[in-house]
């Protein structure tokens, strides 16, 4: 079993605006989980949760990562903030490769890199009051003393739209939407540069989702934040992202601006993903849908060639043997037979 055959460094995805330096560069990121069996726990294989992923995030933008369950988008997000140690590859944040940092230096860097978690129910410690929960990072990083940190916590609660009285509440006394606001306030306490939002609205009611998304947008304007926004919901992704990375089975399928992805998807997977997105207009619902057959393959045994060939309606012989490289440029796609732009532009109503 080969673990990592270091693939050639992928060409840096080129900048939409060539002048700007990316805040975050992810290069050939891999995260494999060993599968152990038997009494001596011998490694019999690897689950390739993230397999050779590269992208850039520019200051002030929101990069959406979309894909179905198990495509490695959450693992990618966690690797960016080093809650997962990458198996290979680099995550360069503001000029430092955080994949290589020592634990102590990484702790200091956490003040710039924060994360909003998916489940607002389990990600807040039930034993700790909201006030202490929020103040804790400031005290741990010696930014402020206890009273100063609590004052700042009260201020931050107000910013995310919660009354300061909640400082003395326990997490279980709050609703899901309120908890997620606390989760966001928590991430903001250290005034980070980059926030990774791992499905921040998936666990919330639809009516609350919009509120939280708007809050995230407002905060981005106010604090000049950069987001990596991970979601399986196209609605949320489309609403908040400037650019989108489409992932499938641990690999990047397509990267482009939000408008491009929705108007002119070039990867068959993206097309199918968009096609599965419910049409809000009932009069337009009778169009024919592309039906995908089969399941996502086992990431421990990814298919050779293009990982999507087992389900791709356009797959050819070459797709079963050769891995299509990700193209360079503003609109990047990893496909031997990318969809023709003209065909789609005429066929599809621009959403």
């Amino acid at each position, binding site marked *: 079993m080969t673990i990592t055959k270091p693939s050639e460094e992928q060409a840096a995805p080129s900048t939409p605006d060539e002048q700007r330096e990316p805040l975050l560069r992810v290069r050939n990121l891999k995260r494999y989980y060993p599968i152990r069996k038997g009494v001596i726990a011998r490694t019999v294989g690897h689950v390739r949760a993230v397999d050779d992923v590269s992208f850039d995030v520019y200051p002030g933008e929101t990069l959406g990562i979309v894909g179905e369950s198990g495509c490695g988008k959450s693992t990618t997000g966690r690797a960016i903030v080093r809650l997962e140690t990458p198996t290979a590859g680099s995550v360069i944040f503001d000029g430092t490769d955080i994949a290589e940092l020592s634990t102590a230096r990484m702790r200091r860097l956490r003040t710039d890199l924060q*994360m909003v978690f998916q489940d607002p129910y389990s990600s*807040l410690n*039930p034993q700790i009051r909201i006030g202490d929960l929020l103040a804790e990072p400031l005290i741990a990083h010696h930014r402020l003393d206890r009273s100063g940190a609590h004052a700042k916590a009260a201020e931050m609660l107000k910013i995310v739209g919660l009354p300061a009285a909640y400082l003395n509440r326990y997490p279980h006394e709050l609703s899901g939407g309120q908890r997620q606001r606390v989760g966001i306030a928590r991430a903001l306490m250290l005034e980070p540069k980059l926030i990774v939002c791992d499905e921040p609205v998936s666990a919330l009611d639809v009516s609350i989702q919009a509120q939280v998304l708007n809050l995230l947008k407002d905060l981005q304007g106010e604090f000049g934040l950069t987001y990596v926004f991970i979601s399986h919901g196209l609605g949320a992704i489309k609403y908040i992202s400037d650019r989108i990375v489409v992932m499938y089975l641990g690999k990047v399928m397509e990267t482009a601006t939000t408008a491009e992805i929705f108007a002119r998807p070039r990867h068959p997977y993206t097309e199918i993903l968009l096609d599965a997105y419910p049409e809000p207009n009932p009069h337009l619902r009778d169009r024919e849908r592309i039906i995908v057959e089969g399941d996502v393959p086992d990431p421990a045994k990814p298919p050779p060639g293009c990982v999507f060939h087992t389900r791709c309606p356009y797959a050819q012989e070459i797709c079963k043997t050769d891995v299509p490289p990700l193209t360079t440029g503003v609109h990047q796609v990893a496909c031997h037979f990318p969809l023709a732009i003209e065909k789609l532009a005429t066929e599809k109503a621009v959403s």
Partner: protein
Amino acid sequence: MASYLIRRLLIGIPVLLGVTVINFFIINLAPGSPADLYLSPTATPEDVARTEAELGLNQPIFVQYVRWLTQLLHGDLGVSFQNREPVAQLIGDRIGPTLLLMGTSLVVAYLIAIPIGIFAARRKNTAADYSVVGASFLGISVPHFFLGLAVIYLFALQFGWFPTGGMLTLGRGGGFVDRVEHLVLPVTVLATAIAANMVRYVRSSMIDAFGQDYIRTARAKGLGGFTITNKHALRNALIPVVTVIGVDLSALIGGAIVTEQIFQWPGIGLLTIQSIGSRDYSVLMGINLIAAIAVFAANLLTDVAYAVVDPRVAYA
């Protein structure tokens, strides 16, 4: 909370009543009449009958129970068959040493088990962890009487570090040091059993806590390993551990009976063994009642403690 407590206390009444009924009948099922034991082997059947009548043992068992219960409701636990002392006084004299022994054992056990459990959890599935789990298995498996005799042989007879038994050295006035010296060995035996069991609870509870999302959140905040372990994980891990205290207490009472006997510790356990030997029904009933109340109270306290340590738990 108040109404919950009242409800729980009211439920306790039929429970304790049931316990006394069962105990009473079981004790009376034991072969041999107390009267035989208190009279000389040459006693005539008339003597035996007279003694039984004095003790009220000639009455039907139901009548005996109702009599005992009526007495109890008047706040009287009765009189010992053997030495005619009031049962309440006998128990009162012995309960202090037992509480000292059990309390010390419980505290020592927790002081040992919690750090070791955390240690093992942090090193899950390593040689260190397996050693802890193995040692705890040994500690749970070894019977009190064996461990008791083993430590007496080793530390009292071979090394002479500690006395073989008793609570005080006669003629030394019984200072604090003397008291502690006598406590070491019986506490070792009792604490070993509790700690061995508790280590497993702490370990699995900590492993569970370490796997929670809020621990990942704490790491994302940039907190250090010490804060995460002792503030975030331990607070949550101790909730299930607290609930085990109630269960432990009943095991402790059972263990104390054997341990007190081995170390001649002048507590309730020793009194129990003596009373069983002399078929002293009234003393045994008194001890059983006290033990039942203790276990009941411990369970109630556990549930209350649960609400105290976990803000999510509220009793209506």
